[in-house]
Structure formats: C-alpha cells, structure tokens
C-alpha cells in the first residue's frame, strides 16, 4: 500500500514538474504580451494585435482610448504582443496561411509584405474602411500595400528620408551642414571631419539598402524594372555604389557595427559620437529620442545630398502596414478600428505626437500648432524642426517599389553584396552581376 502511494506521489511530482517546464517555455517563446484596457467596459470585444515595434503599441493605446470613448457600444480591449522582427513575421506567415493561431490585427513590415501578398492574400480587403479617408491621405502609400487595386494594409508613415547630422562633431571640425548640397560637398566636409576629429562623417551600410534606395531615387531608378523584374546591376546602381565606395575609400564613411544606423550596436556608436551622419527615413527620429538620449540638442535634420543639383532629395523608406487577418474574431470591428487608428486626422496627429513619424495625411504637415508644438519631445530633441525640412522636400519624395521580388533582392544585397563591396572591396560591377544572377536563380 505504501509503495502505491509513493508511486502516485512520484508520478504527480513529475507531471507537475513537466507541466511547469512546458508552461514556462511557451510563455517565453510568445514574446511580451500586455492587455490595453483603455477604459473598455465588461462587454468590450477583446482583439489581439501582433507587432515588432514596441512603440506602435503606445500609439494604439492612445487611439484605443479615443475609440472606446466615441463608440461605447463597440468597445475594444487590445491584447498587444511584441515579438522580434523575424520571429513575428515567420509566426504570422505560418498562422495566417494555415488559418490557425493568427492574431486579429498585425503589423507587417514593407520588406516582408510581398510575401503575404502571394497567391490569394489571407488578409481582409480594407477598401470599404479606407474610402472615407481616401482623399486625405497620400495615394502612393495606399498603393504600396495594395494588390490588384485592393488595399490590404494601412500605412503608418511616408518615411521621407533625410540626413541626421551631429552638429557637435561638425562644429569641432568647422563644417556647416547647411552648405552640403551634393555628394561632392559631403565628401569635402567628411574629409575635413576625419582630418580634424578622426571621426567618420557617415556610415557605409551593409545590412540595409536605405543608401542604395536614396541613390536610385535620385537618378529616377529602382531595384526593379517597370514589370517588377529585378535589375540590381543597372548603371544607376553602379553609379550610386561607386559614389559611396569612393566616400569609404576617403575615410568619409565607414562600416558600422550592426551594419546600419537602425541597430542596437549602431545606436551605441552614434551615442558615443563616432559617426556624424545617418541617412535614414524620418522614423529614425524615434530611435534618437528613445535610444540615443545623449545626443539630445545636437542632431540637425537636413535634406540628403544629391549627385547633381536639382535631383530629388528624398524617397519614402521602409514602412509598416497594419492588417486584419481572415480569421479575426470580429472582422468589421477590427477593420474599422485600424482605419480609425491609422487614417483619421486624429490618428495622423497622434502618429506624429507619439511616434515622431511623418503622417500620410499631409494636411498635418502644415498644422503649425501640431508640428511646432514646443512640448513635443521630437521638437525638443532636434536642433531644427523636422517639418521645416519635410515641407521643403515635400514634392521630391520618390517611391521605391515593393514587388514580389523585393524580399529576395533585399536578402541577397544585405547578406552578400554590400558586405563584399564595403568589407572586402570587391569590384562593384562584378558584385552586382553576381547578385543579379543569384536573385534570378532564387526567383526561378
């Protein structure tokens, strides 16, 4: 009898131990989850939302409060899960395609978006909820996340790319960033900075294509041709990369830990003042305020240098689309909420206030009381007002296409080609020809 008890006890202990292990590992692999109540009552519908940017949750929290107040009979509780970039997209892709375990609402980054548009998209069409806002937002941002004329995702920002200059370093070297117009000017300034301070003027990015995109946009070119076929060994690409390589050879720019300005390692490098410039889409501002606090009051925003005067000085870089999955609990509610949270005038103002992004409702760009609000943390952080620059380049913001080939192009360039060119000094034309061949092979 005693033995029997002992055995039962042992089994119970072991099961509870195993149970414990299981529960622990599942919670850690799911990322961080928090429930946003935002004044929702008992009868509120609970919707789940996956994102890879913690800050996006903060914006949704603000919009949720407003929504719940305005729609007392259709209140929402939002269950926000933040996961690392790759993890979230991989999990979402499997969940959406298999129809099991997907959240109601999710963020998809532009670089991954075409993968979700393959075949018949497993996402809800959003045309009906976009309609009321259609005339107030930039059409190209709606087109960016459309397939065959149907919108499946709602953009967060224009992502106009600009130059971020560390004025402290430039001052030390006796350089005025306002006089930099062309890449030649930038090179001269950079050589002076390196000579006087031993610091680099900018970065040579190896793990992102922001710099190549801006070079192509200036020349009216793209990574793909009209039909969306990859064309990475074009004349324009060679020219753009040659300019960057020349800058690197003259110690004006250098590769950075992490491979590009938007990485943890790079935040550290910028914070320590080792690099004076980053050419990034405007959303990099939120990285400055959040991760590079030491640089407050030192960073100025300016248009990106161009190859020749008169060329367009910006392009829309990166982006995140918010989507509603086919398996959402309450599709219509989720759709209406995200349209409200991302397209309404209120939402666009909040996108600037909370996230520091350039809103896709360009009316906001002219609202001085919003854009120049002295209490705004972005206005406080930067030397000059971002919108003064944005309004100056407003008509020059080009679009780099996102096509089904884009994820592959991006992968090959960022893992192999840019490293070969900037780290190993491989011939630019040869590296790009190899990249073209590899991309074509992978897309076969």
């Amino acid at each position, binding site marked *: 009898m005693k033995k029997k008890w002992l055995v039962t006890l042992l089994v119970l202990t072991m099961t509870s131990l195993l149970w414990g292990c299981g529960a622990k590992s599942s919670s850690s692999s799911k990322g961080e989850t928090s429930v946003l109540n935002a004044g929702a009552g008992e009868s509120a519908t609970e919707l789940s939302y996956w994102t890879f940017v913690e800050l996006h949750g903060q914006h949704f929290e603000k919009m949720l409060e407003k929504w719940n107040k305005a729609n007392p009979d259709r209140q929402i509780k939002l269950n926000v899960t933040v996961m690392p970039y790759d993890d979230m*997209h991989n999990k979402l*892709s*499997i969940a959406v395609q298999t129809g099991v375990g997907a959240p109601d609402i999710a963020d998809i980054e532009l670089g991954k978006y075409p993968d979700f548009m*393959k*075949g018949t998209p497993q996402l809800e069409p959003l045309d009906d909820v976009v309609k009321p806002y259609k005339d107030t937002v930039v059409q190209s941002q709606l087109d960016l996340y459309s397939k065959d004329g149907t919108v499946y995702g709602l953009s967060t920002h224009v992502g106009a790319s600009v130059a971020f200059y560390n004025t402290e370093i430039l001052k030390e070297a006796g350089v005025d960033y306002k006089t930099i117009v062309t890449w030649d000017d930038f090179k001269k300034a950079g050589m002076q900075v390196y000579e006087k301070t031993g610091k680099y003027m900018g970065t040579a990015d190896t793990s992102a294509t922001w710099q190549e995109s801006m070079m192509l946009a200036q020349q009216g070119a793209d990574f793909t041709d009209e039909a969306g076929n990859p064309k990475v060994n074009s004349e324009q690409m060679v020219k753009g990369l040659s300019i960057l390589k020349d800058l690197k050879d003259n110690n004006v720019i250098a590769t950075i830990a992490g*491979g590009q300005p938007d990485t943890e390692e790079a935040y550290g490098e910028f914070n320590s003042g080792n690099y004076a410039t980053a050419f990034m889409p405007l959303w990099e501002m939120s990285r400055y305020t959040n991760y590079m606090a030491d640089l407050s009051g030192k960073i100025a925003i300016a248009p990106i240098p161009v190859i020749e005067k008169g060329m367009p000085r910006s392009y829309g870089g990166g982006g995140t689309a918010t989507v509603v999955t086919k398996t959402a609990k309450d599709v219509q509610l989720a759709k209406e909420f995200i349209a409200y949270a991302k397209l309404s005038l209120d939402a666009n103002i909040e996108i600037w206030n909370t996230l520091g992004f350039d809103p896709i409702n360009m009316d906001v760009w002219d609202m001085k009381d919003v854009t120049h609000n002295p209490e705004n943390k972005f206005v406080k952080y930067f030397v000059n007002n971002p919108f003064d620059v944005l309004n100056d380049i407003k008509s020059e913001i080009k679009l780099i296409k996102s096509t089904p080939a884009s994820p*592959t192009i991006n992968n090959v360039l960022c*893992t192999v080609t840019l490293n070969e060119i900037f*780290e190993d000094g491989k011939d630019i034309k040869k590296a790009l020809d190899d990249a073209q061949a590899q991309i074509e*092979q992978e897309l076969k």
Partner: protein
Amino acid sequence: MIKRFLYSQKVAPYVFVLPFILVFLIFWVYPLGSSLSMSFQKVTLGQDAQWVGLDNYTKLMGDKTFFKAVANSAVYMLLTLVILIPFPMLFAVLINSKLMWAREFFKSSFFFPALTSVVVAGTIFRLMFGEMEGSMINSILGLFGIEPMKFLKGQVTGYIALVALATWRWTGVNMLYFLSGLKNIPDDYYEAASIDGASRFQKFTKITMPLLKPTSIYVLTISIYAGLAMFIESMMLWNGNNSPKNIGLTIVGYLYRQGIEKNNLGYAAAVGIVLLAITMIINLTQLAFSGMFKKED
C-alpha cells in the same frame, strides 16, 4: 481482464514497444514520407500544391547559396569532430585517473554549459565576439596591442567564434560518454599491464583507446549528425539567419530560410531530403568502415 492481457507473455512485449513504434511512425515515417512527396511539389501554404517533378532538385543543383550552406555545415562538422572527440576523451581519462583531485567539481563544471540554453549562450558569445573595441575578446586582444577585429564578419574568424561556442557547450557532454565508457574497462587490465612494465602512454594506446572504440564510434556518429544539423548556434551567434556573406548559413538554416522565411516549402523539403541523404551516406560509410555492421565474434 486488463491484468490478464498485460500479464500475457505474448502480448506484453508488443505493449511495451508500442509507444516507440507509434512515435516512430507518427514523428518519423509520416513526416519523412510527406517531405519526400512535398519535395516534388511547389507548396505555398494556404494555396493548392502543384506537382513539379524534379524542378526543386534541378534548381537546388544550380543554387550557389545552397552549396555554400553545405560547405559551411561540412566544415563545422569536421571541426567539431577534430576538437570534440580527442579532447573530451583526454579530459575523461584525466578525470577518471586516481591522481585527480576535485574530480566531481571538474565533472560538473565541464557539464554545466550543456545545461545552458543555446539561445543564451549564443547571445553571450555574440556579445563577446562583437566588433566594437569594448567587446570582450577585442578588449583582451587590445591588451596585446592587437587592433579590434570584426570576428563575425569573416569566414575564418566567424568560425573561430562558432567552434568556440560548440566546444564550450559540448565538451562536457562528450566527456560524460567517455567517462561511462571508461567505467566499463576492468582495472585488472591496467594492473596486469603495470606488472608487465607498460608505461602510461602504452596503457592509454593499447588498453584505453581500443576498449573505448564502441563509445568513440557512438560519439562520432552523433557528432556527424549534430554537426550537419546545426542551426540554432549559428542563428543566435549572428542574431538571425542572415549572416554577412552567408558565412554562418547551415543546411538547416537554408531549409528554414526557404521554407519558413520565404514560404517555399517544396524547395525546403528538397533541401531536407538532400540533408538526410548526405547524413545517411556519411554515417553508414563511417559505420561500415569501423566494422559496426560485422557480426560480433
């Protein structure tokens, strides 16, 4: 009734092996069969699969990145074999020796890394081998006046980090295998050898090594498999599946990239089948050469 059923000498063996058979069928035979059929299809989740014949395999044969992944996995496997068999064997002999003090301490400290999660270990090694001046390895090199190195951006230096991680993690596990093998060697042999005047080295090469052969072959077999199937270590060390110039891309990493990241499951299945074939060929050849298929005398 149940008691009679369970106590039946005919039925009991089947009942006991049933869990294994079920696991084998459900988690091995079925997935293997379905990957084999998938490797002849174009599969995109959520859409209907199409039969494409040998297309995936012919594409694979022209895929440079795949060959890079195969080469990476092969080199990693060879390096782990060269390091993770002789050294653990040596440590096991040392720890097993009567002259050894604090034996249990060394045993557990060697084994401890195996208990650490690969995710944590990989992240720590990534920080250690970081390219900034302040990273641990670079600051040590700095003491000797050596310039900071970009460890994780070069093929050779990247592999130094990767193999260091593998060595740190697996030495203790392999050492335990060898220790258990050593326990099976009777002391009488060594005593007899001592009486005959054999040296320490002679005892090691003539008694320990030959009698450890079954253990060595077991460790070799699992190391070949583990080396070729390595994935998470690389993924953690390079903070994702996309290392610069694919220096850390392994076969399983490529399978993951194609199947999960690019949603191209048919092609990924073909990669998996080729991996299985490579592993089987190497291991069966190795086992045949070491005489494991011969009948015991």
